[in-house]
C-alpha cells in the first residue's frame, strides 16, 4: 500500500501545455505558438521588472532571464500539470510559465500584500504550489537535492510525476550538485536536471573556473548519464529534449542531465551592468536572440503574422495590467512578520 497524497493541481490558462504529443514527434504548431507566447510574456515581464527597478519600486536584488526565455518556454511546454518544478533565484520566467499569476509575481517584486508570498519571499523565492512550482532557491545548488526529494516522493507514491530542476552553469562547481546527481542516478529518480549555461558564473566566465569545457555535460559520465548539450536559445530543441528526458523518467529510467547553452542579455543581477563581457561576444549572442529567431521560424512554418502580433499585444496588455494592479496594491502587512514560521500559522517558540 502506498499513500497517494497529491496536492491540488490548477492548470493555468496562460501556461503552455503539451497536447497530443509524442516523445519523438515535433511539437504541433499551435503549441509552438504558445511557446512563442511564453517567451514574449517573459521578455515583456522582465523588461517591466527592470524598468520598475530603475524607478526604485523594486528593492533588493533581482536576476532577469532576458535572453534565456527559450529554455523556460521549452521546458514548461513539455511538462505535465502535475509535474514538479524547482528554479533558482533567476526564476521569474519559470514561475510565470508554471502559471503563477503575473500580477502576484510583480506584486512580490514590489513588496505588496498581493504578492505571490505576500512580500515575504521576494524576487529570489517565488513559489506557487497550486501548480507544483515548488520554489525558487537562492543558495546555489541546494535545490537540486530538494528536487530529488520531490522525485523520491513521486517514485515512492507510485505516480509518474517528473521533477524538473533548473540551475545555472555555476552550480556545477558546488558540492550539492555532485551529491544530488549521484543520489538521483543511484536511485533512478525521475528528475530532469536542466542546466541553463549562460557562460558566466555571476561575473566570471564559467570556462575560467571549470576543469572541463562543458560544465554540466562533461560531468554526466561520472553519474552514468549521457552528456547532452543543446541550443538553449531554441525552444523547439529544448521542448523535444525535455519531452524525451521526462518520458524516460516516467518510464523509470532515471534522471537526465541537460546542458542548454544560452546567454543573458543583461548582467548577473540588478547591480551588475555586465561590462566584463566583450562587446563582440554580446553582439554575437544578441544576434541569436531566441525571440526574433523563433518568430521567423513560426512565420516560415505557416503561422500567420497576425497571430504572432496578437500574442505580442496580449502579452503587452497582460504586463501593463499586472503592473497597474501591483502598483495599486497595498504594501506588505507588517502583521505578517510573525506569521507562518510554524504550522500553527504563528511564530510562537515558547509556552
Amino acid at each position, binding site marked *: 500500500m502506498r499513500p497517494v497524497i497529491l496536492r491540488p493541481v490548477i492548470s493555468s490558462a496562460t501556461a503552455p501545455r503539451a497536447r497530443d504529443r509524442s516523445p519523438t514527434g515535433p511539437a504541433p504548431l499551435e503549441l509552438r505558438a504558445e511557446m512563442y507566447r511564453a517567451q514574449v510574456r517573459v521578455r515583456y515581464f522582465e523588461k517591466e521588472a527592470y524598468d520598475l527597478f530603475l524607478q526604485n519600486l523594486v528593492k533588493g536584488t533581482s536576476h532577469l532571464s532576458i535572453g534565456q526565455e527559450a529554455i523556460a518556454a521549452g521546458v514548461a511546454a513539455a511538462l505535465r500539470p502535475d509535474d514538479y518544478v524547482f528554479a533558482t533565484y533567476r526564476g521569474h520566467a519559470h514561475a510565470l510559465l508554471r502559471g503563477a499569476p503575473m500580477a502576484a509575481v510583480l506584486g512580490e517584486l514590489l513588496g505588496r500584500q498581493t504578492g505571490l508570498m505576500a512580500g515575504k519571499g521576494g524576487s529570489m523565492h517565488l513559489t506557487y504550489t497550486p501548480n507544483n512550482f515548488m*520554489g525558487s532557491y537562492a543558495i546555489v545548488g541546494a535545490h537540486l537535492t*530538494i528536487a*530529488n526529494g520531490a*522525485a523520491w516522493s513521486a517514485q515512492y507514491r507510485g505516480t509518474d510525476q517528473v521533477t524538473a530542476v533548473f540551475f545555472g552553469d555555476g552550480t556545477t562547481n558546488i558540492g550539492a550538485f555532485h*551529491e544530488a546527481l549521484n543520489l538521483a542516478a543511484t536511485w533512478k529518480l525521475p528528475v530532469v536536471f536542466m542546466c541553463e549555461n549562460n557562460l558566466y558564473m555571476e561575473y566570471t566566465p564559467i570556462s575560467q573556473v571549470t576543469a572541463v569545457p562543458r560544465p554540466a555535460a562533461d560531468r554526466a559520465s561520472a553519474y552514468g548519464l549521457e552528456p547532452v548539450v543543446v541550443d538553449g536559445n531554441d525552444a523547439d530543441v529544448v521542448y523535444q529534449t525535455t519531452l524525451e528526458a521526462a518520458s524516460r523518467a516516467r518510464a523509470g529510467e532515471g534522471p537526465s542531465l541537460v546542458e542548454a547553452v544560452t546567454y543573458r542579455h543583461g548582467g548577473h543581477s540588478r547591480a551588475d551592468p555586465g561590462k566584463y563581457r566583450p562587446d563582440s561576444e554580446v553582439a554575437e549572442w544578441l544576434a541569436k536572440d531566441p525571440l526574433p529567431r523563433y518568430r521567423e521560424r513560426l512565420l516560415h512554418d505557416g503561422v500567420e503574422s497576425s497571430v504572432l502580433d496578437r500574442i505580442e499585444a496580449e502579452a503587452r496588455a497582460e504586463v501593463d495590467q499586472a503592473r497597474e494592479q501591483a502598483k495599486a496594491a497595498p504594501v506588505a502587512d507588517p502583521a505578517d512578520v510573525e506569521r507562518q514560521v510554524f504550522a500553527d500559522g504563528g511564530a510562537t517558540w515558547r*509556552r
Partner: protein
Amino acid sequence: MGQVITYREAVAVGLAQEMARDPSVVMIGEDIGAAGGVFKATAGLLEKFGPERVRDTPISEQAILGAAMGAAMTGLRPVAEVMFADFVSVCHDVIANQIAKARYMTNGQVALPLVVRFGNGGGLRFGAQHSQSVESWLMAVPGLKVVVPSTPADVVGLMAAAVRDDDPVMFLEEKALYPTSGEVPEGEHVDQLGTARVRRDGADVTIVALGTMVHRALAAAEQLAAEGTDCEVVDLRSLVPLDVSTVAGSVRKTGRLFTVEENPRLCGWGAELASIVAEECFYDLDAPIRRITTPHVPLPAADSLEDAAIPSVERVASEVRSGLG
C-alpha cells in the same frame, strides 16, 4: 506495566509505531537499513518495513536532508538520520536556509512535516568532531523545533509527536544514553512537544537540565538531599517550543535557578533561559542564576579530559553548593 527497554531500542520502537500507523512515514540515512544504523538505533526496521521505506543513502548529508525536504513538501513524512550530530555542519544550509525558512518565505504554501535524527553529545571519547552537543546551534534558527529526550519513554513518545508534527523537528538522541534502560508505556505512546517534566520535586533549588545532563542533575540532587538541600530537577525535553511556564513555576517556588548544559558555554540554551527568568521572575529570585556548562572549548578525546570538560555529578553538586552561598 510497560516493558523495560533501552534508549537505543526505544528509537526503533517509536519509529516502528509511527511507520505502522502511517505509510507516508519513510526513513533515509547512511547505514540505517541493512546495518541497522551506526548506533544500531534503527535495527530491525528494514526487515519490518522494506527497503522502499528504510532507504540507505551515500555519504551525502546535503542530499539526505534535501531529499527529506522535497519529500516533505510533496506529501511524505520523512525521518532523516544525520548520524553524528556534528555532521549537521555539512548540511546546515539545507537545515538553516531551506528547511527552516521554506514555510515562512512562501507564506505558508509549503509544509515541512519532517524529522531529522541526530546522535548528539559526548561521553564516548570520540573527540571534537564526533561528540558535540549541537542543540544550541539548532535552537538559534527560527523555524525549527528542537527536541532532546532523556528516557526511553520520552524517545518513543516524543518521536511519535515529532513525526506527527507538521513542522520540521530536530530530534537529538543522546549517544551517551543509548545503552540506558527505562520503562515505556504499554501500547501506542504519543507525547507532546514543548513540554518540560519535573523529574524530582524539591523546595530549595531548581536545576534545569537536558538530555544526558538530566541524569547527572538527578544524581547530584540525591547527594545534595543527603546534605539537606532539596533540589527540584526539571527535564526541559524541548528547546523549541520552550516550556517557560514549567521552569518559571519551579523558580517561583524555589527562588534559585541552575542550568546544567552539555554544550559549550557561549550562547548555550541556558543563557536564553537565564535571560527569560531574569526578565520575568527577577523578584522571585533569591540568588544569582548560575549556569553549569562545558567550558568554551572543543571537546577533547581522552577519558580524563572529556570527563573534566562535561559537567559531572560532582561538579553539578559542588556548583549548586557554592551557589547556595
